[in-house]
């Protein structure tokens, strides 16, 4: 029996959370090793597991994969969440890249000084409402299907749900002008694997708190 994928990261969302979402949605069990000290991090670097000296790291299928997007693309392909052909794949890539752009602003904002952090959070909500969510609302409206691409559950749906939930943490009413996205959110959240991941006690991580931020700053030395 193949070993479970093993994730190496801090015990928090950061750049690993999208990977956890994708694995969980695909119904794949995974293990996690949490980096809690500078020594642990340096050991990973010195043991040669981190190609560019950085995490996330995912051990899977005999490979030590780093670089978030490389990992996500591999997982999407492996678990049939990448569309049926090249044209569907590029649409998934476009949607996911846009969504990840939005989420990155939020993830990095957590590490900024309080005033800049608030500004960035406000900017995230604004971009979500004016640049990103309207696009996905229109896509759903134009084809009237349950999923973003090819009438089939894909990475694009998972990534969008994750983004919606993250932005809602900043502004609970952000979906008020987007009825199809609201329905989408409910529908995708009810998929059994995702429903399970959304329960307390799953491997889903909470939003960063000051303890997490301090820990990451200390370990990554910035």
């Amino acid at each position, binding site marked *: 029996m193949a070993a479970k994928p093993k994730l190496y990261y801090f015990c928090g969302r950061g750049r690993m959370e999208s990977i956890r979402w994708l694995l969980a949605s695909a119904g794949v069990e995974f293990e996690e090793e949490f980096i809690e000290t500078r020594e642990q991090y340096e050991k990973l670097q010195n043991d040669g597991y981190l190609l560019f000296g950085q995490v996330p790291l995912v051990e899977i299928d005999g*490979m030590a994969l780093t670089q978030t997007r490389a990992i996500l693309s591999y997982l999407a392909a492996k678990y049939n969440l990448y569309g049926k052909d090249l044209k569907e794949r590029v649409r998934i890539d476009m949607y996911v890249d846009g969504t990840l752009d939005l989420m990155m602003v939020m993830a990095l904002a957590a590490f900024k000084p309080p005033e800049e952090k608030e500004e960035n959070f406000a900017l995230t909500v604004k971009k979500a409402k004016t640049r990103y969510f309207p696009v996905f609302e229109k896509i759903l409206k134009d084809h009237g299907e349950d999923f973003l691409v090819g009438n089939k559950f894909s990475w694009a749906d998972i990534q969008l749900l994750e983004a919606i939930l993250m932005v809602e943490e900043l502004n609970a009413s952000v979906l008020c002008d987007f009825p199809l996205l609201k329905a989408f959110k409910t529908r995708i959240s009810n998929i059994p694997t995702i429903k399970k991941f959304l329960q307390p006690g799953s491997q889903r991580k909470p939003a960063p708190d000051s303890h997490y931020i301090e820990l990451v700053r200390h370990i990554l030395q910035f």
Partner: protein
Amino acid sequence: MAAKPKLHYFNGRGRMECIRWLLAAAGVEFEEKFIESPEDLEKLKKDGSLMFQQVPMVEIDGMKMVQTRAILNYIATKYNLYGKDMKERALIDMYVEGMADLYEMILLLPLCPPDQKDAKVALIKERTINRYFPVFEKVLKSHGQDYLVGNKLSKADVYLVELLYIVEELDPSLITSFPLLKALKTRISNLPTVKKFLQPGSQRKPPMDEKSLEKAKKIFNIK
């Protein structure tokens, strides 16, 4: 006959250059429509041509493609520059994502405030010789082949060689201790399609000067 891909961007490198390199290396002829003013960009946005209101945008195979990575991956797949299977693709992606991190630092340098510039350049040089170049030198050494992945030209080789040229423009001494990278650069540069692209008069764009930086800032409304 299929229409040539059409690239929409300003007349400069920016985030479109790596796409130009990949198309050129694949021997694909392409057209370019340059955004010369804020009004040009507005028009593209109003026409609904830009999914997230941003460029690069490439018209190809009946689609208006956006997002640099999505475009590169599409071209790589279409022209067989993406390895032979999922595992090779993962390696190619991993290498290119690392290269892209360094590329991004250099790309954003012109927008760096003057008082931070020296520190930024020092960081770029340090990362180049300590974090990035050693990885690719080691990959080439480990298999002794002509290309980074699967003994075949891929998106990873093209992207790396473009990066090597950009780093050379910043500081030619940085590549000195990396003989295999030097050899890769020469080898890839001698491929007929790449050689052609490196000639004057090709669609390759020069480094940004003050004037084109000001123009780009105006178009994209960057302070």
